[in-house]
């Protein structure tokens, strides 16, 4: 692994972000809108039911966590798509970069992109709604870590599809998160789902992450098993995504996708 090359590829995307105001605005705009919208919805419910009166922070916290996951996954895909859109894809793959270096550079850049959106959202929740996500304490770090790994995993899976099938796979990149959201139990307990859906939900790390966030905020207790399960499933999916990426790269070399991607 070469830090110089990783830094080089990081710079390529950092320059792009800092050169484009709409891109910076896009990073900040959507999380802010999302958080504001959900904050007002939370406030509305809080004034209408006793239950939601205690749960404003829960809904808003879950919205922030979900948005972080969404930004991480989409952010990773965007980095990959930027190379296709700018017709720079071939240049990148004829540079002497190992696949591991490309992935590490993209994973790091995706984290920074997500944090650029996350920090303003967290800062806004306190003055606007009197709620701090930091109430999750040290476990917030583990929840964010799990979401980050899963977001990156989805990003790598979609990028594998782009490598294998070319730019036509682009639309899948945008819809992945929406497809998984119902099973993630972001805003409601897993019991809300029909039984068959619950079985699907339990093989995703998301359900453990959001169940635990609600558990900490509403019961002020910590269930380590949820955090553990989230990491186990994450480790499995992350490993599978890396294997699939390498496999797709080899298939792309056989099918010619890499050479046609820039055209």
């Amino acid at each position, binding site marked *: 692994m*070469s830090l*110089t*090359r990783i*830094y*080089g*590829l990081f*710079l*390529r995307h950092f*320059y*792009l972000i800092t*050169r*484009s105001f709409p891109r910076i605005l896009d990073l900040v705009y959507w999380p802010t809108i999302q958080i504001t919208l959900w904050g007002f919805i939370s406030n509305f419910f809080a004034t209408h039911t006793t239950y939601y009166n205690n749960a404003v922070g829960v809904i808003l916290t879950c919205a922030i966590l979900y948005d972080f996951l969404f930004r991480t996954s989409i952010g990773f895909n965007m980095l990959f798509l*930027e190379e296709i859109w*700018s*017709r*720079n*894809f*071939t*240049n*990148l*793959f*004829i*540079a*002497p*970069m*190992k696949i591991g270096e490309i992935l590490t550079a993209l994973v790091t850049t995706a984290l920074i992109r997500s944090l650029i959106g996350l920090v303003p959202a967290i800062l806004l929740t306190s003055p606007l709604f009197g709620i701090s996500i930091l109430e999750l304490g040290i476990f917030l770090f583990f929840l964010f870590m799990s979401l980050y790994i899963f977001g990156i995993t989805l990003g790598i899976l979609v990028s594998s599809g782009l490598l294998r099938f070319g730019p036509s796979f682009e639309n899948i990149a945008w819809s992945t998160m929406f497809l998984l959201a119902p099973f993630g139990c972001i805003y409601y307990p897993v019991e809300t789902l029909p039984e068959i859906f619950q079985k699907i939900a339990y093989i995703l790390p998301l359900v453990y992450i959001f169940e635990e966030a609600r558990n900490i905020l509403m019961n002020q207790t910590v269930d380590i098993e949820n955090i553990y399960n989230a990491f186990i499933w994450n480790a499995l999916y992350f490993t599978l995504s890396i294997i699939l990426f390498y496999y797709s790269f*080899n298939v792309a*070399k*056989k*099918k*010619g996708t*890499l*050479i046609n991607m*820039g*055209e």
Partner: protein
Amino acid sequence: MKNLIEVKDIKKNYGKKEAVKGISFNVKENEILGLLGPNGSGKTTTIGMLLGLLKPTSGQIFINNLKLEDHRIEILEIINFISPYIELPKKLTVKQNLYVYSKLYKVKKIEERIEYLSEKLRIGELLNSITGELSSGQKNRVSLAKALINEPRVLLLDEPTASLDPEVGDFVRTFLEEYMKEKKISILLASHNMSEVTRLCKSVLMMRNGEIIDQGNPDDLIAKHGRTNLEEVFLKLSRSKSEFN
């Protein structure tokens, strides 16, 4: 002179379609080999295999005596490529693009290298310009700077002067001639510009339907086929396969 590129009986099939049908050739140090052929003849597929972007169905490729299949990264460190079909990120400045690629190729004295190429390729005044806002001629010279950023020993050129005006085209050709003399590199030039190939190449390969149908010195090929220039030879070979089988 040693061979920097050695291609041994490479084939590439896409399903049942045979894009390249077992071709072999060498490119020596300090040599420009022209790769000619009509669209779909297998030129781009051949270049793709030399760059490691395509896996040959069979056959072997050696660059600087290293087998491509086993030494992809080491080979990519000493090779580079230019094509009108690929571009540098448009929103970055020219200097940012060259800086990024210097990092990807682990260039040691980056500023020195960028300064050298800027002077040679007359892009000094463009360094702070946005790449996407450059003219075709300017973009071409910037792409060439990127292709030379790692001081490649092997340069693959796919239509390097396509869509350039004659003045810029001549500048690029003159630059390539001088650069090759100075650095003793190997160049594989795929082009449809026959006067360019006649001027730059001492040897050419003629491809059609994934096969090499003739090869040799441009002057010898012109004499062999009884034509007055390489373009006429190209047209003859492209249009009638039966004459040469």
